[in-house]
C-alpha cells in the first residue's frame, strides 16, 4: 500500500479578535491508495477548511501556519506556485458540496471537462472531447456525446455532480477529495453518487477523502473514519471498530444521537452544551465541558494519542482506563 496523503500537525488560522485564531489545530491524517477515509464532524469543526488546505486553497485572510502535507510523496507546503498548480487536479482532484454552483454557468459542460483534460496533458481538442465523452460515460451520464454540449442549467443536480466528478477525474488523480458531495442531493441520487464513488475507487485504485457529517454515508462507503471536534481529530480507526466500539466520549455521543439507533418514542439522546466556536475553545481537552467522563487532567492538559488495536484516541479517560 502506498501512502497517498499524509498530514502532520496541520494548523490553519484566521485573524480574530486576539491575534490569529486557529480553526484547524495540529491535525494529523493519513490515507493509503485505494482506501476511503471519512472525515466526520459537526458544522464548524474545521473539516471543510481541512479539505481546502490540502490543496492550499484556504481563502484569504486564512493561512496555513504550520504542519506538513504530503500528497503522493510531494511536500505540498514547500512547492512553488507553478508546481503547486500542476499538482492540483493532476495528483488530487476535488469535488465540492454544491453541484448547483460548482460549474461555470456560461460554459458548456463539455468545454469545462475538456479544459480540465488539456490542463495536464498535451492532447488536441478533438481527442480531449472524445476522452470527455468517455469520462461522461464512466460517471454514468446518459447520451454522453450530446450532453457535452449542454449548459449546466440544463442538467439536474445529480447530473451536475456527475459532471463535477468527471472533471475531478479528468487528470486521473491519485487522491479525490470530496467535500460533502451528496449533501445537496436527493436521497436516491445520493445513493447513486456514493455507489459511483465506490466503483471509481475500486477501478482506479485512487484514495478518497470523504468529508461528511452524515454517519449513514460513513457506514456505507468508508474504510476508515476520522472524527473531528473543534479543529482536531479526536479519534481515528477502521470503520467497524469505530462505529462499533468507539472509545472517545464525543464519538460515542455522536453515535447515540443517530435517530435510527435510538429506541422508538424515546427522547433522542443529545450531547449537552454546544460546539464551541473557533477562538473560544476551552483549555485542556476541548470536549471537557460537555464530556460525561471529565476529571481533573482534562481541564489542564491537552490529551495525546492513545493507541488501541485498530484505532487511536485522544482522551485522558481512555488512557487512564487502559493504564489501570
Amino acid at each position, binding site marked *: 500500500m502506498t501512502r497517498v496523503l499524509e498530514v502532520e500537525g496541520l494548523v490553519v488560522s484566521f485573524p480574530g479578535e486576539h491575534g490569529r485564531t486557529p480553526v484547524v489545530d495540529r491535525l494529523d491524517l493519513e490515507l493509503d491508495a485505494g482506501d476511503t477515509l471519512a472525515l466526520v464532524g459537526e458544522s464548524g469543526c474545521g473539516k471543510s477548511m481541512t479539505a481546502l488546505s490540502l*490543496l492550499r*486553497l484556504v*481563502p*484569504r485572510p486564512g493561512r496555513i501556519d504550520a504542519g506538513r502535507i504530503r500528497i503522493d510523496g510531494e511536500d505540498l507546503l514547500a512547492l512553488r506556485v507553478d508546481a503547486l*498548480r*500542476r*499538482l*492540483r*487536479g*493532476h495528483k488530487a*482532484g*476535488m469535488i*465540492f*458540496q*454544491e453541484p448547483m*454552483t*460548482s*460549474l*461555470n*454557468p*456560461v*460554459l458548456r459542460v463539455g468545454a469545462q471537462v475538456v*479544459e*480540465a483534460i488539456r*490542463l*495536464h496533458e498535451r492532447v488536441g481538442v478533438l481527442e480531449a472531447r472524445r476522452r470527455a465523452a468517455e469520462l461522461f460515460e464512466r460517471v454514468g451520464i446518459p447520451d454522453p456525446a450530446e450532453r457535452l454540449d449542454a*449548459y449546466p442549467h440544463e442538467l439536474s443536480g445529480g447530473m451536475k455532480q456527475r459532471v*463535477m466528478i468527471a*472533471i*475531478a477525474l*479528468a*487528470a486521473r488523480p491519485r487522491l479525490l477529495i470530496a467535500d460533502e458531495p451528496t449533501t445537496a442531493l436527493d436521497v436516491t441520487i445520493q445513493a447513486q453518487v456514493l455507489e459511483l464513488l465506490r466503483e471509481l475507487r475500486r477501478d482506479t485504485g485512487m484514495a478518497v477523502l470523504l468529508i461528511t457529517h452524515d454517519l449513514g454515508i460513513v457506514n456505507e462507503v468508508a474504510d476508515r473514519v476520522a472524527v473531528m471536534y473543534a479543529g482536531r481529530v479526536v479519534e481515528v480507526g477502521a470503520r467497524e471498530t469505530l462505529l462499533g466500539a468507539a472509545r472517545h466520549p464525543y464519538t460515542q455521543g455522536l453515535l447515540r444521537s443517530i435517530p435510527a439507533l435510538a429506541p422508538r418514542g424515546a427522547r433522542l439522546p443529545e450531547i449537552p452544551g454546544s460546539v464551541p466556536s473557533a477562538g473560544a475553545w476551552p483549555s485542556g481537552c476541548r470536549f471537557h465541558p460537555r464530556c460525561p467522563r471529565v476529571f481533573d487532567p482534562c481541564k489542564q492538559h491537552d490529551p495525546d494519542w492513545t493507541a488501541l488495536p485498530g484505532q487511536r484516541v485522544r482522551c485522558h479517560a481512555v488512557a487512564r482506563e487502559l493504564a489501570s
Partner: protein
Amino acid sequence: MLGNCAVAALVLAGLAAALRVGRSPLWRQAGRELRRRRPFALLVVALYAAIALLDSIAWVDHEGGGVHEARSLLVRAFPADFREASYSAPLADVEFYGGAPLRHPGSHWLGTDILGRDVLLQALRGARVALLVGGLTSLISIPLALLFGVAAGYRGGRVDDVVFFVTSTLASMPGLLLLVALVMALGRGPVQVCIALGVTGWVGFARLARGETFKLRELDYVQAARALGVPELRIVLRHVVPNLMHLVVITFVLTFSGLVLSEAVLSWLGLGIDGSWGQMIDQARDELSREPAIWWNLTAASAALFGLILAVNLVGDAVRDILDPRTLRERA
C-alpha cells in the same frame, strides 16, 4: 480621418458582438425575449442606426472644379443643392424674414436654419454623432472599467487600494469641470470628446465590476477551477469575465443615453462635436428670442434627441430586466 477609424471600429465591434451573441444560445434567448418585449423601441433604435450608417458612407465627387467635400449617402438622397438663402418656416413658400420666394417652396418639412440648410437633414445627420458618442465612449470606458474593476476585485489587497484611490479621486472631482478640462487639453473633435467622456465615465462600472468580481472569486466554480490547477489569468478570462458580460450589456445600454446627453451639455458649453443635436440646440437658443421666434430648429433637434434617448432607455430597461440574475430567478 480619426472619425472614420472610430466609425469602422464601432461597426467592427458591433459585428463581433453580433457574432458572439449568435453563437451562444443563452444570448440568443435573451435577444428573442428583448424582441418580444420591446419591438417598437428596438425598431426606432435600428432606424436611428440605419440613418447614422447611411450618413457614415461618404465619398468625394471629382467632376468639375471648385472645392469639394465628401457627401454621404444620406445627403445624396436629398435633392441636389437643397439650400435656401436664410430662415424659412416648415413647409413654407417664402423666406421667414423678408418674404422672398424659396427655391424649393413647400419642400422643407422642418424649415431651414440661418444658413438656409434644411433642418430635417441636419436633425437626421445628428444621429451619426449621437451614436458615435454613445458607442465609441462605451468602447473606451467599459474595457477600462473592466480592467480596473476585475483587477481590484480579483487580486484585492494592494491592487484594490490603488484602484480604489484612483476611482475615488476621479469621483471626487466635479465631473463637468474635469470633462471640460480634458476636452480643452485634448483639443476638439469627435474622438477627443469621446476619449474625454470615456476617461471620466468609467468609475461607476469599475466599482460594479469590482464588487461582482469579489463575489465571483469566492464562488464554487472559481474555487473548483483553482483546485484543478487552472492558471490565474485563465480563471479571470474564462470563468470571471464571461460571467460579468450581462453587467457589461446592461451598463452599456443604460449609460448610452447619458453619454448622448453629456455631449449635448458639452455642446451647450461650446465644446461639443460639429453637427450634433447639442450644437443645433445651442445655436437655436438665440433664435428663440427673435421676433417672431424661430422655433423649429430647437424643436427638431430636441425631438430627435428625445426619440433616441427614450427608445434606448426603453430597450435598456428591458435588457436589465432580462439579464439581471434576480429577475431571471423569478422567471425560472
